[in-house]
């Protein structure tokens, strides 16, 4: 009680102060002062976000560079480039009547010459390091030419389209799963921290080790139980075949197909997240200021929201971001198991067919997704972590 009184007193004093100032300086000045304060924290947040954007951008570029180095140890990038050149020259020759009508051996000679010219033009005869900037640019723009055997759903053989057309399916699946995971874990964690030591609490703690297994692992069992033994749900795919024509039918079918993969993801992550977030909450609810708030008789929902949830949010967001990072790439096999037509299944298929360009491109898309995840986490951090606003450092 004394603390609250003091605070109240302090506020009153400053209010009087303000009132006097207002009298002296007038209302105009006061508005500009608040807005400049707002402006300053806005510039701080903007600067922070910009710095993070650049850092993450550089990190993504370095990551992609590393991918290129790994891929080109075996000369695989050169092979992709050469295949692309051969394809382009082939198309050009087919269009060009003067070459097409030549006898076979002469035509072959012309084609080989054209390929050699193109290879020299693109610098394939230069040492690898000199070629790296070019490769980096084509990797950043996913410009890997054409895939020898794979096609995109719309029928294109361009590697970029093959990959990008698969992206929405992955985003739908993981977006749904991540949203459910976040709110379910948050809800359970708060719920359990209120019922610390109850049977339910103990059960969740006991279940936390099951998160050692990845989502695909639970996916296989879910398919076995709910699609084979008791066939109530579809075992794979994104919508039924042929796809329903009406929007509602499509949405319904999509939801039906989402149930099992989303449950698999939830099962593999929700217990451990609940467990660790519950621990954050418990640690924070034994802080002195929470005890104080309780002593003041504040309603428990208010205490939870303003005194417990608020300070624990940054570490929770951080731990969630780390979960997401493992989830993105861990989802490759999950999608493969559920034949979900996203990036993971594409990767799975590309491995089976030895499609180097698609594998490389998908790896790079994953690097982008991870970078984006961290960047979004940083933005959320900037909004919820007061340290960013007042400028005493970020999340590191």
């Amino acid at each position, binding site marked *: 009680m004394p603390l609250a009184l003091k605070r109240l007193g302090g506020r009153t004093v400053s209010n009087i102060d303000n009132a006097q100032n207002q009298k002296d300086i007038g209302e105009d000045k006061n508005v500009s002062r608040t807005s400049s304060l707002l402006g300053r924290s806005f510039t701080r947040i903007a600067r922070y976000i910009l710095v993070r954007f650049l850092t*993450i951008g550089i*990190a993504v570029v370095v990551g992609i560079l590393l991918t290129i180095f790994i891929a080109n140890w075996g000369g695989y990038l050169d092979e992709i480039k050469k295949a692309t050149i051969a394809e382009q020259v082939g198309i050009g020759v087919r269009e060009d009547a003067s070459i097409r009508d030549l006898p076979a051996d002469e035509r072959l000679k012309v084609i080989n010459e054209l390929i050699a010219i193109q290879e020299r033009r693109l610098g394939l005869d230069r040492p690898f390091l000199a070629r790296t900037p070019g490769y980096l640019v084509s990797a950043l723009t996913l410009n890997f030419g054409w895939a020898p055997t794979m096609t995109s759903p719309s029928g294109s053989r361009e590697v970029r389209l093959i990959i990008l057309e698969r992206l929405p399916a992955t985003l739908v699946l993981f977006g749904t799963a991540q949203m459910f995971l976040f709110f379910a874990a948050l809800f359970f964690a708060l719920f359990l921290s209120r019922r610390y030591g109850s049977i339910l609490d103990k059960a969740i*703690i006991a279940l936390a080790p099951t998160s050692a297994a990845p989502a695909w692992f639970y996916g296989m069992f879910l398919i076995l139980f709910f699609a084979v033994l008791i066939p109530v749900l579809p075992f794979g795919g994104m919508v039924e075949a042929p796809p329903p024509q009406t929007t509602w039918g499509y949405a319904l079918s999509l939801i039906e197909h989402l149930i099992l993969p989303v449950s698999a993801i939830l099962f593999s992550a929700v217990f451990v997240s609940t467990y660790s977030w519950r621990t954050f909450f418990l640690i924070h609810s034994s802080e002195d200021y929470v005890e104080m708030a309780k002593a003041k008789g504040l309603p428990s929902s208010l205490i939870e929201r303003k005194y417990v949830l608020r300070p624990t949010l940054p570490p929770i967001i951080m731990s969630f971001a780390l979960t997401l990072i493992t989830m993105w*790439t861990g989802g490759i096999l999950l999608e493969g198991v559920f034949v979900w037509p996203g990036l993971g299944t594409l990767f799975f298929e590309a491995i089976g067919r030895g499609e180097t360009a698609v594998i490389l491109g998908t790896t790079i898309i994953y690097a982008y997704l991870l970078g984006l995840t961290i960047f979004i986490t940083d933005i959320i951090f900037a909004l919820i972590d007061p340290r960013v606003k007042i400028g005493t450092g970020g999340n590191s």
Partner: protein
Amino acid sequence: MSDKFKLLLRYPSAAVGLLIISLLIIISIVTVITIPYSEAIRLWRGDSETWQEYPRTAWPAWINILPGINRPTTINLTSETDGVKDTRSVSEDITEVNITIPFNFQYDDFPSEMSIFFKSSYKEQKPHVELFWINPKGEEIHIGSLEGSGAHRMSVDDRLTRKLGGKPAHIGLFADPDNLELPIKGEYTIRMQGFLFGDQDTLDARMVVYGQVHGFAGTDHLRRDLMVGLLWGIPVALAFGFLAAVGAQLNTFLLAAIGVWYGKWLDGIFRWITQVNLILPILPLLIMIGMFFSRSIWVILGAVILLSIFGSYYFVLRAMFLQIKGAPYIDAAKAYGAGDARIIFRYLIPKIIPVLLPQFVSIIPAYVFLEATISVLGLGDLHLPTLGKIIHDAHSHAAIFNGQAYWMIQPSILLIVMGIAFAMLGYTLDRVFNPRLRQI
């Protein structure tokens, strides 16, 4: 330390975890001793000789314990021990050999395949064999006339299948004419009438009626006994998880200690590398390494360690080291003139080792499952049997849709038991070594 251990055993989850882990370690040691590395690789390569008498994709034999299930096991009959063989000479250079092998069949389901392997020695001409089949009702069926050498796979003999009304031998020869869904139970006899064309020639035969169940673990599509793969999968998984955890954690640990101690730019560089590393898609990179360079489990292990050294755990360790760096006893060490290396290795690191232990134990399943994931994706070690490779085979043969769930379930259960055991121990260690968690 010993009082911590006693405290640890007071938690049932830690006790159970430790028990399971020690059991797995004992199984691993016994396996590696009884089936040496080279033998395991030879067995798992699965040439036709090694496994030809094993059924394909057979359930484990324990399934017969379940009520209402009575599937046949493999029946292996040889003319030397199970049959009656009498020889008489027909003419100067022709000898007739009559072999009858009776056997008892008391199952509610059909065998999965039938084959006869002849073991004959001849000078000029291969022996000629007439094969007859007598079912429990006493009906005799002429199976065919064949050369008495090599293997005769009756189930894929088209002529026989046509004779049996379109049913392959292992079903047609057993089916009850009154109820084609069920086999006739009772004593069957296979009779072979062989003609040898040289006085030194011999003829022996072995008949295999392949069952639908086999052993403790069943078999896969290449007739391999899954027991070998499952048993060897345990030490491989344990070794991979343990070595990866040791390799990654120790290096992270050292780097965090060095980074914090020298501070400034070194720490900055390490932190930056960690942030870059966080964005690297580790699994796709490992897949690329597996595809482009080597699928050897050791290469993958090395890559896993390299890619996890600068994991997010670096930040956790860094925060701990920073706290210790400011401790008075470090100042004292500096004051008496201790060198950098001495402070790092004798003062900083020992302080944190207990905190490292829980994390070390709980990270092991992550690596075990990482290896499994790579194997299931089809990029497992080419030679070694691993649990992930078994799951990969099962998955690529759609085992759970073809009623062969055992194929997928058994390696999965081993993996999850291993994972949960380490995780349970890890969580409890965390409580024991982090007093702040112990209170709540």
